[in-house]
Structure formats: C-alpha cells, structure tokens
C-alpha cells in the first residue's frame, strides 16, 4: 500500500479518534489565532481609547496581560496536541506490532504514522486558523453591534501565518515523540494481550488502602498504573489551568488593583478648596485619565489664587474634617538631571545615568506629614526631613528618565533628588511632588499654598460641606468634591477591562474543550475495562463515579499546580503590588472553583456515552 493511501484509509477508519484529535488541535489553533488577533485589536483599541490619557504604568498592565495570555495559549496548544497524539498512539501499539510482525520495517511503519500525524496537524491547523480568523471578525462585529466601538483593523496575515507555522512545528515536534515511543515497543510485547501502552509493568503493586472507597481505589489504581498518561494529562491540564488562572485571577486582580491604585491616588471623600479657575483646571487635569481635554494655560502662581494661612487653619479645625493637606500647585518645565552611579563592570569608576531631557509637568509642593493620598510608590514617599527630594509620576518617570531613583529632577534651577515613582492619574502621571517649604522658597520665598485638600467624614458630608462653604464664602474660593471624578475613573477602567475580560472567557472555553477531548480519548481507551466492570455487576453510576473521581484527582493536582503557577505569574510579573480585598479573594476563589467544577463535570459527558454502549459490544472489541 502506498505511503499516503494507508494513512488516509487508517484515519478514515478511525473516525472518532481522528475527529477528536483534529477537533482538539483546531480548537487550540483557533483560540490562539483569535486571542492574538482580537488581543491585538483590543490592545490597539485600548491605545486608541486611552491614547494620551492612561498613564504609562497602567497601559503596561493591560498590554502585559494580553501578551501573557497569548503566550500561554500557544504553550497550551502545543501541549494539548502532543497529548492527543500520545493518546491516539496508545491505541495503535498493537497495530504497529502486527505491521512489524508481518514484515513491515520499523521506519516504514514510522513513516505511515508520521504521515497520519502530518495529515491531522495540517487539517487541524488550517481549520483552526480559518475558524480563528472568522471568530475574530465575528466577535468584533458582534461587539460593535452591542454598542462598543472597536475599529476593524486589516488582517495581519503575517501574524496568522506565524501562529500557523508555530502550531505545525510544535505539534510535529511534540507529536513525533509518542510515535517513536510506540514504534520502539518490541513486536512480541505489542502483540501481547497483556501489554498496554503507558502502563507500568515493573514492580508488583502495593496493596491500595482498604479504607479507600471502591471508586477512589479503582480511580487511584488507574491513575497510578497509567503513570505516563497521567503525568502527561497533569502537565497538559496544569498548563491549561495556569492559563485559566492568569486570565481569571489575573484579570480580576488586575482590574481591581488598577481601580485600587486610582482610588488611592485620587482619594475618597476628598474636597479641594481653591480659586474656581484653579479647581476647574485641576479637575480637568485629573480627568485626562479618562477624557482628553485641552486645557487653557493658567498662571497658578498669581497672587489672587493664594489661600491665606489663617483660612487653612480655620478649615482644618472644622469638626468632620479628618485631615488637611495644603498644596502649592503649578505647571512648569522640569528637567532630567543625570545621575552618577558606580560602574557595574568596573567598580572603581563612575558612569552617568540618563540624559538632559525636559518636559512640562505639574509641580506640586506638599507637606509630607499632611498628605492625604496613598499612591502606589516605587521607592519611598517624601518624609518630614526631606528638603530637596521629589516623587515623580509614572509617565514622567518612564518617558523622561532612564533610572529615576538614581537621578534628580530640576525645577527652577534647583535639583530635587528623586526618591520614588508613584502611579498617579493626575495630568496623566506627568507630576512631580516636592516639599512645600522648598518649593515656596523657590517661588516667592514665603510658605504659601493655592490648594487645600480636605479629607472629610463621609457620614457628616453635608454638614461639613456647608461649614466649608460658609468659611470660604467671603473669599473667591470654592470647595469641589472629587468623588464624582473618582467615579468616572472607575467607570473608565471598568470599560477598558470589559474589553480585556473577553480573553479569559474564550480561554476558559478552550480549556473545557481540551479537557473534554482528553477525557473522551482517555475514557475511550479505558472503555474495555469499564465494560469488564459492568459485566461484573457495576452499575452505570459506579462507572460515572470512577470517571468523576479520576477527573477530580487529575483536576485537583493539575489545578493546584496551575493555580499556583498562575498566581505566581500574576503576582510576580503581572501585578507585582496587588490591591486585594476580601471580596477580590472571594471572587477569584469563586470563579476558579466554578472553572474547576465545570472542567470536572465536563468529564462526565464522555463517561455517560460509554456506559450507554452495549457491554457485549465493548468486550468484543479487540
């Protein structure tokens, strides 16, 4: 028989196994193509939506998330393909033995099965690529129909071809291994009815604990005897569950953390008191995070904007004002100052870090002991003893400094050593916080402020606001609550994450299909044993319990690994400093539990199909 005719006929004869392997590969390829195209589109959309608004630190979190999910999906796809090929080869060992016994050379048999692998991989990858592209277009159009505005970008053919190529190569590399292993089985062993591919044959079994229930005992034995298959299944599912954890837990934690960062940076129950021109301008700068607006230049240092110290004192003493934070705010050109560090290669020499860049930023003088915000700070925040120190915003740090904490920022010809970088949505992160006293001296030699930030008791809000208004009524000053602005920040981040959270949804569906394919092939491989058990009096529910227990053990082990690795990825790479509430933890745990239960329950479908088959029919199969 020709080298093509045999594999084609063989695949056609084994429609179920061939179909499952192709479907498994198709799903993985389609999901990856879809994720990367859609992620690219979403990433582009995020850039469009957030361009010039979202700070660099926040943008990095989103793009890192899409990148990590796509990378994991490729890994999962290759592993799943390898595993499906392994499972289908485990059923072919006897055939290979027969071929070898009838005089077929090992390399010819290898050629036949390699051709089969090529046909399966080619069909699966082509179908997956086409379906992935179609899913992408369908999803973008559907989202637009539901009111989102995602622009349809031209298809990136090179990306699609690259994914196709990666899958074909990875599937061949990983899929060839089980074929080689199966070909290497001795002919006599392969033909023996006692031989089972992947079943350990060395040591006699230690008695399983009699305390275990029947289904647990049988499931435990099946898993420990099929070490090779179990190990592969655990690796494969652990990768799938890592992907699921990163997408679910990472997605939820990233979403809540970014919202937490903003809430801490803006502050809750904050009232700013200042001249109406200034407060309007300040709110506009704060709103650039979610809506880009051109702001008219304004002279913050105008004398009429100054707030007298006596008023600061009076407002601070109002009952219900929890904290008062006077600030001197103005827009100014700031300059990068090079830092000097010890040369890491030659410790007795020094090297310069940075350049001489400059840009417009909001310079804010604060009294460190009175600051009401709780930014996420890399490095440290200002303290009372600092004189010429500064904390700068994330965008300023990323865009204008090489190694901020080793450099300084120059304002009004005065050098301020950078001690920390904060995530701050104000003016898109183009801010520099310096001690108020030092800044006042530079500006006019007198300690003075043009803003007063007040943190008020939320339970006495109206009463406190009325008292503040009363106090400032005789001057041209107004109090403005920032809670509304904070709410808009939250809504905006929620909107952006609503795009991104489509990815976990699809990766979860991929994971479920992968597990279902695995369970179908695995249970098909065990159906003779289940037939024997039924012949001995096992009711269908006993078989279902055994299958469910096997799936549960595999899911729990791979789940523990996958969840741990997923959370490690999330906390180490994605969100190094997460803001997690009890609610976040409950929500993450709930979703993961739901995903694991869904995966476990999906194993029952192929088991239900198997128990419906005639026992005599199952036992009569070779």
């Amino acid at each position, binding site marked *: 028989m020709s080298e093509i005719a045999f594999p084609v006929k063989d695949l056609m004869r084994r429609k179920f196994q061939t179909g499952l392997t192709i479907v498994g590969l198709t799903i993985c390829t389609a999901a990856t193509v879809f994720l990367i195209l859609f992620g690219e589109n979403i990433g582009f959309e995020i850039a469009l939506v957030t361009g010039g608004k979202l700070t660099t630190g926040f943008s990095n979190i989103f793009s890192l998330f899409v990148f990590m999910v796509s990378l994991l999906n490729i890994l999962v796809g290759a592993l799943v393909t390898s595993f499906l090929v392994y499972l289908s080869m485990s059923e072919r060992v006897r055939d290979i033995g027969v071929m070898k016994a009838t005089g077929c050379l090992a390399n010819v048999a290898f050629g036949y099965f390699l051709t089969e692998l090529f046909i399966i991989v080619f069909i699966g990858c082509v179908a997956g690529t086409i379906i992935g592209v179609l899913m992408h277009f369908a999803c973008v159009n559907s989202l637009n129909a539901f009111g989102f505005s995602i622009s349809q970008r031209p298809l990136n053919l090179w990306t699609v071809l690259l994914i196709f190529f990666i899958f074909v190569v990875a599937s061949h590399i990983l899929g060839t291994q089980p074929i080689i292993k199966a070909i290497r089985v001795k002919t006599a062993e392969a033909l023996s009815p006692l031989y089972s591919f992947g079943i350990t044959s060395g040591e006699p079994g230690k008695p399983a604990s009699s305390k275990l229930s029947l289904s647990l005992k049988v499931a435990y*034995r099946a898993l420990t005897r099929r070490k090779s298959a179990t190990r592969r299944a655990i690796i494969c599912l652990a990768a799938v569950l890592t992907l699921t954890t990163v997408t679910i837990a990472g997605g939820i934690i990233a979403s809540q953390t970014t919202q937490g960062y903003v809430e801490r940076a803006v502050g809750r129950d904050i009232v700013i008191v200042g001249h109406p021109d200034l407060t309007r301008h300040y709110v506009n700068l704060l709103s650039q995070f979610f809506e880009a607006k051109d702001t008219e230049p304004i002279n913050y240092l105008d004398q009429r904007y100054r707030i007298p110290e006596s008023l600061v004192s009076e407002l601070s003493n109002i009952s219900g004002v929890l904290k008062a934070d006077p600030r001197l705010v103005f827009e100014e050109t700031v300059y990068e100052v090079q830092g000097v560090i010890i040369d890491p290669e030659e410790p007795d020499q020094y090297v310069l870090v940075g350049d001489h860049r400059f840009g417009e930023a909001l310079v804010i003088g604060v009294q460190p002991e009175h600051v009401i915000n709780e930014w996420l700070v890399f490095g440290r925040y200002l303290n009372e003893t600092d004189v010429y120190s500064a904390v700068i915003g994330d965008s300023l740090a990323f865009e204008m400094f090489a190694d901020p904490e080793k450099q300084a920022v120059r304002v009004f010809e005065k050098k301020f050593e950078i001690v920390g970088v904060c995530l701050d949505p104000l003016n898109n992160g183009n801010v520099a916080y310096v001690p108020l006293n030092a800044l006042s001296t530079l500006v006019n030699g007198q300690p003075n402020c043009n803003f007063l930030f007040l943190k008020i008791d939320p339970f006495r809000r109206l009463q406190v606001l009325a008292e503040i208004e009363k106090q400032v009524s005789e001057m041209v000053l107004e109090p403005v609550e920032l809670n509304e602005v904070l709410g808009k920040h939250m809504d905006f981040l929620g909107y952006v994450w609503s795009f991104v959270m489509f990815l976990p949804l699809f990766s979860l569906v991929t994971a479920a299909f992968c597990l279902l394919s695995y369970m179908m092939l695995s249970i098909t491989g065990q159906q003779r044993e289940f037939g024997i058990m039924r012949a001995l009096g096992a009711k269908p529910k006993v078989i279902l319990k055994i299958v469910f227990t096997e799936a549960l053990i595999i899911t729990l082990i791979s789940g523990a690994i996958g969840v741990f690795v997923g959370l490690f990825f999330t906390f180490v790479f994605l969100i190094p400093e997460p803001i997690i509430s009890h609610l976040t933890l409950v929500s993450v745990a709930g979703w993961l539990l739901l995903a694991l239960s869904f995966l476990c329950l999906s194993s029952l479908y192929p088991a239900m199909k198997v128990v419906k088959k*005639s026992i005599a029919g199952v036992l009569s199969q070779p």
Partner: protein
Amino acid sequence: MRAIQMRKIKERVVFASSLCKEYQIGDLIIPALRDLNLEVVESEFVSIYGPSGAGKTTLLNLIGGLDQPTSGEIVVFGHDLSTYDEDFLATFRSAYVGFVFQSYNLVSTLTALENVAFPMELAGWSEDRVKIRSEKLLRLLGLFHRANHFPGQLSGGEQQRVAFARALANDPPLILIDEPTGNLDMETGLEIVSILEKLKAKGKTIIVATHDERIIGLGNRTLYLRDGRIVAADE
C-alpha cells in the same frame, strides 16, 4: 422414577424461547442466533460447542444479561432479562452470575487480589469479609503468592485462574465460561479442567462454550451450535 422426581424439583435456571439476535454492521444484518430454544436447570453442566461464529459467545452474553435479544424471550432465575434496565441487570449479574471470559478480561489496573475483590466490593460486602474471601479464593487456586501482581505481570494460565477466582467471588449460582482453555497450553488447560470438575462437584450451574473435548466430556449435556441454531444435543 426416583431420579425423575429429583430432576423435577430442580429449579429452572435458564429458559430461552425463540431467541434471536442480529447485529447490524452498516446496511448488513448478521444473524447471530436464530429461533433458539434452551432450558438449563440447577446444578447442570452444559457444554456448548460449535464452529467460530456459531453464536456461542452471543448466547452466553444474552444469558448473562450483557446483551439484549433482538426478539424472543430469555428468562434467567425467573427474570425476563429483556424487560429490565441496566441498573437491574447490573444487580442481577452481581448476585446470580459469575463470568469467565475467553480473553480473561481482568482489569489491568487492579492487582490479582483487587480483581477478585471487585465483585464483592460492588455487592457491598464488609472489608474484612472481602479480604478473607479474596485471599481464600486465591489460595484455593494456588495464586496467593501473586496476589499483589497486576494482570500484565501474570502468565495466561495465572490470569485465567484469577478470572475463575473472580467469577466465584460472590458465590454465584450460575457460572458462564467462554472458551476457558482456548488461549492456554496443554498443562495449564488441565488445571482449568480440574477447577471445572471441582465446581461441578460443588453443584454450581455451569454453561461453558468450548472446543476442548476434555471439558465437553465433563458436561451433563452438550449442545452443538451452528449458524445460530442448536443442531444437536447429547445427554
């Protein structure tokens, strides 16, 4: 006269009337059993022989409730097996039938001891009772030293003996045996014949499909099956 009376009081174990079984492969319908009538009473040893494809295994499967007839009636221990669901049939097999399959059909992931214990555990026996009886059966069949070995680590003869031990586990009144010596060498085949003699002496009802004349010789009755019909019967 006394012998006839004795026979009359024996319970009817198997009753098959106009039993037909057909298999469909694509558009092709293959008849496996055609209008077969059979009656087996308590403690009887019935040997069925015939060429390959005559329907021996199909008949054993129908008697054991592993398959459903296409038409006709099959009543075993008073239960019309064509009318019950899978749950009942499972309980029925557990309580009444012990199987010894042609290719042993041991669960490859369970040890010899666990294979023997399996039917008892399914029947809900206590742990101690299961342990004692499993070990006793393996000792009886000379396999106790292989109790913790998996089927893949046992020879064909040893596997067949484990299959016999498993078939006897629940002490079923009916034992169905399919080609017990088909895959074994002469010496091991003799061991199996010896086991069958012991079972017959214990008064078990045994139906065995075989080509082995040593086993046929053990039977109270021998049926010759060809093309799905009983074409000859010797007592």
